[in-house]
């Protein structure tokens, strides 16, 4: 594919070749984003920025639109009939809702981890290799094996599975399955990771493991994480955004948010008065 023949929105540079600028550069910019499931509007005028290599936590009561917002960022909502977005979502300066956007390229660049781990019922290696295969990212077997290994290492799973790569993924424990899903997402070298309550179905020790992993991944990836666990948001995120009824109430550094929120609703929520 010749990049110069594509409209600007299609023009994603692979992460390895991208010029890494100093941390803090905004990589996601959302302006005036409305979102609808058919006639029902669930997001109202969202304004948000995500900076490079930070962890942004999205918190808020159930049903306030956190998952919906997250799924707007890689256009996963496209798969829901009748759903549509209005407004501006820019990733690396390209409006991802512009016509003719390469959604496949977008999803390669913006990986996603789901609340319920969803490994394919294939082998461990095949799971990690899936993204490589469909995107044609490994030229030969040794390259593929190398990328499988490095992804599993990055997800902190390699030592546990290196002797049974051909065993079914579903034979792993819940936490291992979730880390496998992370490895699978990392294998195609995204720049951004979206995590929707990645640890909510896991026990506390496994949750800690996922949190540590998120902190490690932050050195290379920009992470947006939805969580219901305020301690988790406090432990791992740099900044936090509070959602309420489809609106962003405020976005601030996590520390300030949890010690000195500027809005009454935020304070009520984090002190447990509702939600």
């Amino acid at each position, binding site marked *: 594919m010749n990049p110069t023949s594509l409209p600007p929105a299609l023009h994603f540079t692979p992460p390895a070749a991208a010029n890494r600028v100093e941390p803090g550069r905004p990589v996601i910019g959302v302006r005036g984003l409305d979102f609808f499931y058919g006639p029902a509007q669930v997001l109202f005028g969202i304004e948000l920025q995500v900076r490079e290599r930070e962890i942004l936590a999205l918190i808020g009561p159930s049903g306030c639109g956190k998952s919906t917002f997250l799924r707007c960022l*890689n256009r*996963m909502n496209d*798969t829901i*009939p009748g759903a549509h977005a209005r407004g501006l979502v820019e990733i690396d300066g390209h409006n991802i809702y512009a016509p003719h956007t390469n959604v*496949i*390229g977008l*999803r*390669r660049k913006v*990986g*996603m981890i*789901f609340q*319920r781990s*969803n*490994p*394919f*019922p*294939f082998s461990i290696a095949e799971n990690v290799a*899936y*993204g490589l*295969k*469909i*995107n044609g990212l490994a030229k030969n077997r040794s390259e593929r094996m190398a990328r499988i290994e490095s992804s599993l290492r990055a997800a902190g799973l390699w030592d546990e599975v290196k002797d049974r790569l051909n*065993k*079914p*993924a*579903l*034979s792993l424990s819940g936490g291992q399955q979730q880390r496998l*899903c992370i490895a*699978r*997402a990392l294998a*195609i070298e995204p720049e951004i990771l979206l995590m929707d309550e990645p640890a909510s179905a896991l026990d506390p020790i496994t949750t800690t493991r996922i949190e540590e992993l998120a902190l490690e991944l932050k050195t290379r990836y920009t992470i947006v994480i939805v969580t219901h666990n305020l301690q988790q948001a406090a432990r791992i995120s740099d900044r936090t955004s509070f959602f309420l009824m489809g609106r962003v109430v405020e976005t601030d550094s996590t520390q300030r948010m949890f010690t000195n929120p500027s809005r009454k609703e935020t304070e009520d929520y984090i002190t447990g008065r509702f939600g």
Partner: protein
Amino acid sequence: MASLNPALSTLPLAAPRRRAWRRRIFDACGWGLCGLAFLCLGAATVWILATVVLHGLGALNWKMITQGTVGTGGGLMNAIEGTLILALGGIALALPPGLAAGIYLAEFDTGWLAPVIRFFSDVLVGVPSIVIGYFGYVTLVEDLGWGFSAAAGGIALAIIALPYITRGSEMAIRQVPREMRDAAYALGASDSRVVMSITVPLALPGVLTGVLLALAIAVGETAPLLYTAGWSNFLWNGHLIQEPVGYLTYAIWAFITEPFASAHALAYAAALLVTGFVLVISIFARLALDENTGWRRRMRG
């Protein structure tokens, strides 16, 4: 009449005491009806199978499966071969369009075409099989001039099998969890990629069950073949048209009413063979779908 349902009547609902005797009577009636139903069903099944097996075993021998039919005697090798060729050929013809239609119905339900396909599929299930035989006779045997032939018989069976394969595939594909598709989409898979690499492979056990069901039906069909495949005493010579083919259900239909013991033996043996084929196919279908055997287990580890 909820209390007729034994499962419901065991719910620990606090009913008024004076109603208790009524409930007990309803209970007894419920169980009684269940028992009766079971007896009828069980008796009918056992009776049929006993008849088929007892007669069949008396008639079945080595000669029966290694020789062709001679007049109203001889063996059934020609019919066994023909049944396999016609049924497998029919399924092979029906599988590609049936699977494609199933994928379409399950994945692209939004268009106007889906209800139309579903309607035609339902109509096709309802068309009496003899009508399909007659249709095959008029169009293939006569108008196209194929004569009684494997091609005409195979196509007739394919028409019978098509709606079962379509619906079976649709159901199986619908049962693939949304999470699996989401995972693939999130990794940058296109619609067609998701279908080919995730949805269809994960639906395969269910698709296979539909295919086996259709195969069982095809093996047991008679009417559509009478007008399309004809009958032959000889092994198939490989010609797709202008060459009639024998099959087991014909042997039952034609020979049971003949006044000769040798003809009866052919019919009995054919009945046992057809029933045996269908049972074996059903067992395979069960295994394919069963959580604890087959593909699902391999994938789950």
